[in-house]
């Protein structure tokens, strides 16, 4: 009896601690499937066995890590895409794409909704930042000649993503339905009207009428929140996958 009492296995507190530690470790293992990445093997597993991280290779040349080579611009483009997706989804909770309600929704967002103004600011400044960062990313890739074979087609995908970035930003511009957005989009879609041969038809297709109104608002909204982001997401996946397959260009 005496030996049983002093045995740590019989101490209820210890038993609970051991069981919780074992359970915690089992949960951790069920999520990550390897211990903390501090060896070559677990570090490789950390990248390989994670759906998000496996967009990276497991190893990389040290020269490719040089910040003055990439300036993180590609990663930052994706970062802003994510920021805009998250803040955009939150904004959708408060916004109705109707000419009678849209403007008031933005006003409410700025005055009534908790942190609504902050949310809207983040979406707007993030959008401007994304346009700038994507453009700079293109310049970086061009000036380092990172489009060399076999990366030609990924450069083309990148150009398409630049166009999508412009379109995403432009389609979002109309949504607040204030004087600024209304006339900026009027000017913008008038440029489409100048297309040779099919100008008026192109403009009609874009705004669903002869001038900016409810039809244009719902078209721009649908393009902005679902069609263009989906297209961008698909092209981003292709873009990343090809970078992953062809390797990082830096430091050759």
């Amino acid at each position, binding site marked *: 009896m005496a030996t049983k009492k002093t045995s740590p296995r019989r101490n209820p507190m210890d038993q609970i601690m051991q069981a919780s530690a074992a359970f915690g470790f089992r949960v951790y293992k069920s999520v990550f499937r390897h211990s903390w*990445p501090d060896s*070559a093997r677990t*570090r490789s597993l*950390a*990248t390989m066995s994670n759906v998000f*991280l496996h967009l*990276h*290779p*497991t*190893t*990389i*040349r*040290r*020269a490719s*890590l040089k910040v003055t080579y990439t300036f*993180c611009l590609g*990663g*930052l483009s994706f970062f*802003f895409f994510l920021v805009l997706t998250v803040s955009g989804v939150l904004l959708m909770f408060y916004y109705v794409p109707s000419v009678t309600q849209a*403007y008031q929704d*933005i006003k409410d967002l700025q005055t009534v909704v908790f942190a609504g*103004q*902050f949310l*809207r*600011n*983040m*979406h707007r*400044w*993030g959008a*401007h930042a994304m346009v700038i960062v994507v453009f700079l990313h*293109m310049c970086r890739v061009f*000036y*380092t*000649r*990172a*489009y*060399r074979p076999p990366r*030609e087609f990924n450069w*083309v995908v990148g*150009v398409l993503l630049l166009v999508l970035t*412009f379109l995403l*930003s*432009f389609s979002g511009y109309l949504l607040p*339905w*204030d004087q*600024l*957005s*209304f*006339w900026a989009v009027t*000017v*913008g879609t*008038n*440029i489409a*009207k*100048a*297309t040779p041969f099919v100008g008026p*038809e192109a403009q009609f297709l874009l705004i669903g009428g002869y*001038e900016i109104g409810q039809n244009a608002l719902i078209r721009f909204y649908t393009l902005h929140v679902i069609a263009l982001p989906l297209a961008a997401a698909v092209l981003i996946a292709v873009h990343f996958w090809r970078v992953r397959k062809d390797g990082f260009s830096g*430091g*050759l």
Partner: protein
Amino acid sequence: MADTSQERQANQEQAQAAAAETNRRAEARRRHDASNPLDKARPHRLLAVVKKEAGFIPTKEPSTIVHVWPHLLMIEFLCAIVFTVTLFITSAFINAPLEDLANPERTPNPSKAPWYFLNLQELLLHMDGGLAGVIVPTVVLLLIALVPYFDLGPGQMGRWFTSERGKAVVQFSAIYTAFWLFFLIAFDIFFPVKTLMKNLFPDASGKGILTTIKIPIPGGDPTYEPTPGGMLNVSVTPADIIFSNWIIPISVIFILSGLLIFLVRKRFNADRRDIFQALFTGFVVAFAITTVVGTAFRGYGQNFDWLWWAFKRPL
């Protein structure tokens, strides 16, 4: 006692064997060195042979290859943190603009597109709308997309501007483009090409409006409003407009690009990659300057206005 004598004997045998082995190795080394005189000059020599466990086994990765975790992920993580904080601070202190409710009856002067299209709006002032708004950007984007299929010359990848010469070419092209662009914008402000052409072709501009002819569309719907009566409206442009809005702008673009190629070839002995760099730099600088001019220096009626930016046009 028998044990100790046996042990002593065994020790002696071992010592003899070790000495014989040492002698054998020294002899083998001498013979080897004699047969291979170059080896005498080697900067290293065998000091000792140790067991595997006692030696230093390098566990560090070779310095040129590192694991993505943590080396790359740490950079990405830090970058994301820095920009999250920056965006939070910006959003906390600078509010997104919101003007009055949209009013189709009240056109603001000037009406401007979003800033990243103001380069096109600036072009619009100097040439035909279709050329500035659709043809030029489409052609430029197509050419940019096609660059990798034509830049097949020698030279390395992964170095900024490819070479020192490339860097010089880029600097030269930037200055060249900036100079010509400011000159062209100023020229069009002080000597408006459209007015000059109107004076050259007084008869054409006398009509005041564009002439329109109608072409029937096969199977056209008479009730479809954009093409009334199933007819396609085709504008016939007067000569002065053709010159000021099409021929002169296109010529300027081609002549200045050609001159840039000629100059970098002559001045820097540029190869194909350098020529692409020169043209791309021309695009980037033109894009930047027209964006800034269109955003900050175009005021009422899109007239040039040195102080327009001071009115704080919202972005």
